[in-house]
């Protein structure tokens, strides 16, 4: 199998180097195609929500899909790309969620915004929303930095345990900080209520798209290559001049940052933040999404986060059995595809398009012919 991969790759790169005949999409065209698709998706989604084809409940599920996509993809930076196994991703999510919610709740009064402004999307509300998300992300990133510096000296199981411990610390802090500070901040075990529902389908989708774009561009740059090099061989990376401590910390912090942003969206989507929601099981749930989709594959994370968020909702009719089905799905995938559904495969729409217009279809051997079937 390895061999066939090699010959295929050699063939295709030989074709790309030798052939000026091979058509390529220019960079603006590539961006245009993707931008148009994003726009179409938003318009269709908004129309369907507006007309009631997608119910309110389904919209909430869609928002959660977006949130979990962002969680899975951000965890994938630390697991799939950096090759570590942090078990405290829910901790960063809760830091981001609480920070963002508190920031927006406090600034809302100062700016004199009402709940209505978030629904209609007045400019001030949009600015506050962005600022809140960024604040949540930055707070989570700071936590990521604090935990990352000591944790990344360890490897494997030890790193897993230390991050797990850290997530528990965050949870307990959120639970008890009111009593310690002596004034109302997080609401303790009762939870933080009265969060304006600033999350909707449109802004969730946009935030997720922008985040995925930024993660993608990071991974396709020299910084991303350095992170992947550390995963593949840390000593060789160091001997090749890759500053391993810096890049490990960077990957960890970026991972925490986007988890924080997802947390901010989550707070606005659910409307209530309670420490109990961000326990160990939440971290595991997200890790399962990443492992199931394939560590190191962004599309894999996106797909499995989508499926694993919708599946429990879709199976609500079989309430008693849904967790059984969920578990069986996981076992089957792990037995037959231990590398995850997509392995490390990553999908490029424009790359695929290029192959199609060059007639390089998987089921067709000769490469010379131009496509007839559009």
């Amino acid at each position: 199998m390895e061999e066939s991969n090699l010959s295929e790759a050699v063939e295709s790169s030989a074709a790309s180097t030798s052939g000026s005949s091979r058509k390529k999409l220019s960079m603006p065209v590539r961006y245009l195609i993707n931008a148009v698709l994003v726009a179409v998706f938003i318009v269709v989604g908004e129309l369907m929500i507006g007309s009631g084809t997608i119910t309110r409940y389904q919209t909430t599920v869609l928002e959660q899909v977006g949130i979990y996509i962002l969680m899975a993809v951000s965890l994938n930076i630390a697991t799939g790309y950096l090759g570590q196994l942090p078990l405290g991703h829910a901790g960063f999510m809760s830091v981001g969620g609480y920070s963002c919610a508190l920031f927006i709740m406090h600034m809302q009064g100062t700016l004199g915004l009402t709940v209505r402004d978030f629904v209609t999307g007045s400019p001030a509300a949009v600015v506050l929303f962005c600022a809140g998300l960024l604040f949540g992300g930055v707070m989570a990133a700071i936590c990521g930095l604090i935990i990352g510096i000591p944790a990344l000296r360890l490897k494997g199981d030890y790193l897993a345990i230390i991050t797990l411990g850290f997530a528990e610390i965050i949870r307990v802090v959120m639970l008890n900080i009111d009593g310690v500070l002596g004034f109302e901040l997080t609401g303790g075990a009762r939870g933080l209520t009265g969060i304006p529902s600033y999350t909707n389908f449109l802004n969730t989708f946009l935030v997720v798209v922008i985040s995925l774009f930024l993660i993608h561009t990071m991974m396709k740059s020299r910084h991303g290559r350095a992170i992947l090099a550390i995963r593949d061989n840390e000593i060789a990376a160091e001997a090749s001049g890759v500053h391993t401590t810096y890049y490990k910390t960077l990957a960890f912090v970026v991972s925490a940052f986007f988890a924080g942003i997802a947390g901010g969206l989550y707070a606005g989507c659910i409307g209530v933040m309670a420490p109990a929601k961000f326990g160990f099981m939440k971290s595991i749930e997200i890790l399962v999404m990443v492992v199931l989709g394939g560590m190191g594959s962004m599309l894999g994370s996106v797909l499995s986060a989508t499926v694993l968020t919708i599946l429990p909702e879709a199976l609500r009719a079989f309430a008693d059995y849904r967790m059984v089905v969920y578990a069986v799905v996981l076992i089957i995938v792990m037995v037959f595809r231990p590398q995850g559904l997509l392995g490390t495969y990553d999908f490029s729409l424009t790359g695929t398009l290029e192959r199609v217009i060059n007639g390089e279809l998987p089921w067709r051997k000769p490469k010379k012919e131009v496509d007839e079937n559009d």
Partner: protein
Amino acid sequence: MTSEKKRSVLVQMEEPNLIPERDLGHIPVLQAKHLGIDFGGLTAVDDFNLAMGRTEISGLIGPNGAGKTTIFNLLTNVYKPTRGTVLLDGYDTAGKSMVQVNKMGIARTFQNIRLFSKMTVEENILVGLGNSMSTKLVTDLFRLPQHWRQEAEFHDKAMDLLAIFDMQKYAKAQAGSLPYGAQRRLEILRALGTRPKVLLLDEPAAGMNPAETEELMENIQKIRDEFQIAILLIEHDMSLVMGVCEAVGVLDYGKIIAKGTPEEIQNDPRVIEAYLGKQGVN
């Protein structure tokens, strides 16, 4: 360990014109002085001295466990030496990290190949070339024009490097799926990408067939001539060592037991003894 005791010197500092045509410049590019390391009670390397000219190809041979790879690890600061100093271009490398040593100008390959096996061949080279890339994270995140310029420039550089071993056709292939010999060559290219002054090759011909070894010999010389760098290599394949090296040091039990030109080494009774044992000398 007195500093007067300099019996084991790969290239004598005091007589820089041992081989007259060698370009030693004013200072040797790489120097090791009385280098030694103990692991617990075991002395793995003891009183190792070395001075390499700017464009010199030297070899380090010795039986298994003689301490050859340990010396590479000392030179690249993987291990902290117990005794002695390493000077690169006259600068002490003590206390520097592996990354800093690499940036100062020592690049290496590994005995057991250490490639970024899930990345493509081109990406492997680009990681090595990363030393000379300068874009900030923000530039790359938002793909500003500078990002594209740099990516294009370094894509060409990577292809130029691959051309040395005629490996352009593998550019898009996964590094781990390459044939063994190609993996070794890729590792050398990756090391070259970091723009070293000294290249350390740990058993570059291991697992290669005679034809490939022959090709490697030519390429080692080609690399030296083209990049004007010094190359120090560890090798068990005598045809390669004798064919390509200008000076050879023989290591046994962590000490240099013989040094000189390949011809001198071949006929040195101490070398034969170290390899074959006393009974073999008849």
